[in-house]
């Protein structure tokens, strides 16, 4: 009744090809954007920014990046944590080497550097597939963390091996360092997320995305119909690395401010982002958002309910959280292997017929 495309006529190819062909979807998208840009910055405080919004925005970018590689191109990667570390350390080196350049460009450049590293570690994907590729990317994870711990040049020879984000400004408003306002960091990350999502969405529904999906579905068939597997896989690794690098840079510079590579970018991070796209939905941009929101919000909600409202001991709640997250992953894999995105698609299908299904 409310959700249908009847009467929504398309008179040009452009309007027929748009991302949100249904009017109500499109409106919802613009409302969400307007809300995120015009309302949230005025009401956000430090707690909301640092506990919920920043991690959500940053993990969404990482999930989009990994989704391109795993969900669209079918190349399993367990190296996300390591690639985020590349973004973070690239951003740190750039920030300290060229303090006069705007942080905005540093973040983009960090994405570029990570894309390059990601392509390098993606080379084995030309020869190996599936589990074997997962192991090769796992090696990247361990190697990169080891490298950033081992070579003091990466952390500017600081005694502790930590990297600390110095204060940098955009339009003379600080976005990194301790004296930031919640709305400034939030908006900075939001701009990157919106741009990343736009680029990723248009890449995945364009020629590049179709090539990736062809490789994912059956690489030999794809090769026969004229998809160059090397180009397709390398572009997937590159695009994926670009977004993951951006998220790593933001994660370090805006969210944590000080990072120790083994702790912040360990194997756990790789799994976390992988869980996000599995729960959210492989091969879906919306799924990346949904999965990130789910895994960022769930611990916070459990903590608020368990500790603040019910007054349970903190360790019980922390243990319960592990149990619940684990249980949910199993449950999702059994009941809805295509994740939250598929649930959303099914809901939309039902809504189109509601309240008069056949």
């Amino acid at each position: 009744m409310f959700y249908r495309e009847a009467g929504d006529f398309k008179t040009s190819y452009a309007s027929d090809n748009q991302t949100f062909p249904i009017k109500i979807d499109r409106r919802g998208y613009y409302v969400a954007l307007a809300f995120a840009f015009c309302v949230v910055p005025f009401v956000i405080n430090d707690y909301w920014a640092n506990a919920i919004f920043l991690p959500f925005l940053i993990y969404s970018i990482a999930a989009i990046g990994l989704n391109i590689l795993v969900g669209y191109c079918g190349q399993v990667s367990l190296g996300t944590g390591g690639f985020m570390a590349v973004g973070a350390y690239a951003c740190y080196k750039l920030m300290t080497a060229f303090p006069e350049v705007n942080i905005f460009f540093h973040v983009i450049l960090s994405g570029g550097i990570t894309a390059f590293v990601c392509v390098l570690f993606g080379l084995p994907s030309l020869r190996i597939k599936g589990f074997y590729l997962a192991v090769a990317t796992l090696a990247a994870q361990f190697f990169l963390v080891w490298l950033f711990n081992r070579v003091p040049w990466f952390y500017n020879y600081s005694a502790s091996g930590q990297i600390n984000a110095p204060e940098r400004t955009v339009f003379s408003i600080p976005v990194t360092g301790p004296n930031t306002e919640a709305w400034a960091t939030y908006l900075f990350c939001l701009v990157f997320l919106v741009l990343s999502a736009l680029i990723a969405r248009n890449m995945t529904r364009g020629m590049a995305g179709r090539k990736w999906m062809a490789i994912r579905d059956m690489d030999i068939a794809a090769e026969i119909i004229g998809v160059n597997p090397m180009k397709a896989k390398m572009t997937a690794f590159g695009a994926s690395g670009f977004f993951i690098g951006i998220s790593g840079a933001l994660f370090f510079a805006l969210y944590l401010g000080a990072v120790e590579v083994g702790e912040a970018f360990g194997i756990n991070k790789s799994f976390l982002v992988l869980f996000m796209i599995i729960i959210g939905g492989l091969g879906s941009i919306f799924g990346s958002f949904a999965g990130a929101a789910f895994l960022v919000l769930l611990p916070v909600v459990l903590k608020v309910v368990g500790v603040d409202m019910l007054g349970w001991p903190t360790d019980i709640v922390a243990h319960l959280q592990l149990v619940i997250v684990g249980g949910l992953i199993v449950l999702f894999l059994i009941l809805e292997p295509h994740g939250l995105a598929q649930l959303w698609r099914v809901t939309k299908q039902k809504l189109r017929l509601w309240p008069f299904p056949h």
Partner: protein
Amino acid sequence: MKMKLATMAVTAVMAAAPAMADLVFPSLSYRTGPYAAGGIPFADGYADYFTLLNERDGGIGGVPTRLLECETGYNTEKGVECYESTKGEGALVYQPLSTGITYQLIPKTTADGIPMHTMGYGRTSAANGKVFSHTFNYPGTYWNGASGAVNYLLAENGGDLNGHKIALVYHNSAYGKEPIRTLEELQKKHGFELSLLPVDHPGQEQKSQWLQIRREKPDTVLMWGWGVMNQVAIQEAANIRFPMENFIGIWWSGAEHDVLSAGDKANGYKALTFHNVGRDFPIFADIQKYVVDTGKAAGAGDQIGNVLYNRGMYAAMLAAEAAKTAQEIHGTADITAAQMRDGMEALEITEEKMAGLGMPNFGPSFSVSCENHGGPGLVGVTQWDAANQTWSLISEFAETDMEVIGALIAEDSGSYASENNIAERCN
């Protein structure tokens, strides 16, 4: 009847009072994960001391305390979330018990004007109060620990360490890397040989490190470990029959749970400390009476008197004394975080004060000043007796090499100040 009404009114006011004014002490604890074995006793000691103050004295200066516990799991992301969610409640002082979280919170707490006390951990150069206005690490730092260990070895070896081989087994993180710079300086000064053996988080896999120790046969092994890493290291040392009396851990590597799993083989293992160990203090009678017997003990209540329990209690005691000092300075019982900071900077711990609190000779006497946030840095050595299952202090709390440490602190804090454009205070 009137009397009854009056008492009811008074009790009602008393009951309502805590909601209006209380002193909030957040406890960023970790009772889960690979570091929980150390996190639990510390958190219990920290919580029990504040419970004791509430039950026995009605709080600090008549204002009850409120402990806000938040689970970090030794994880920096959760640490940030905990910090943000508790700072709005009027938190007076943060004690994150994690060097990683400390590094993150140093700029944040400074910007928010909340003091942070990192007792025997965190960023050592924060001892320079001229640069770090809101960070305190009295009564001792890692660099004191490193120098204390070397001084102890000097005393053991007749003042000469030339050709002495020392291996440092350390947690490969900001925490474990802290002492390296100091040890390298001391190496130049005393002529011992230093080899570095990093152990990656969480530290369960140490076969190769101990194989190397077996091959190189160092005279002494120093350890900067935490959590599960300690138990594994001591077990591995026992496996290669490394003489335990030549194995010295930092104060985070010397608690009951670290040595118990290795059984008798751990006998003679040594660890540094900056406070006293054991249950032989009058305060434990009060804790039994007001906290344990009333059923208000934190956690399972089975950690009382352990090394790390004592340390948590000591941390809480220093925080409470700083709050008292702040109340005296500012003439108000309901202090703010800014006033708490002044109290910490003017804190003076004397032997009489500790004796009055039921903790005679529990830690060193010291006073904090605007320039020195690091305290005197006195280091003692404890040794494990596996037969009696007790730690005992085997040396006096001794001075450390402040000449070397002072220069390093000035250098490191100076670079922090120039990176972050901080003007020196206290001038």
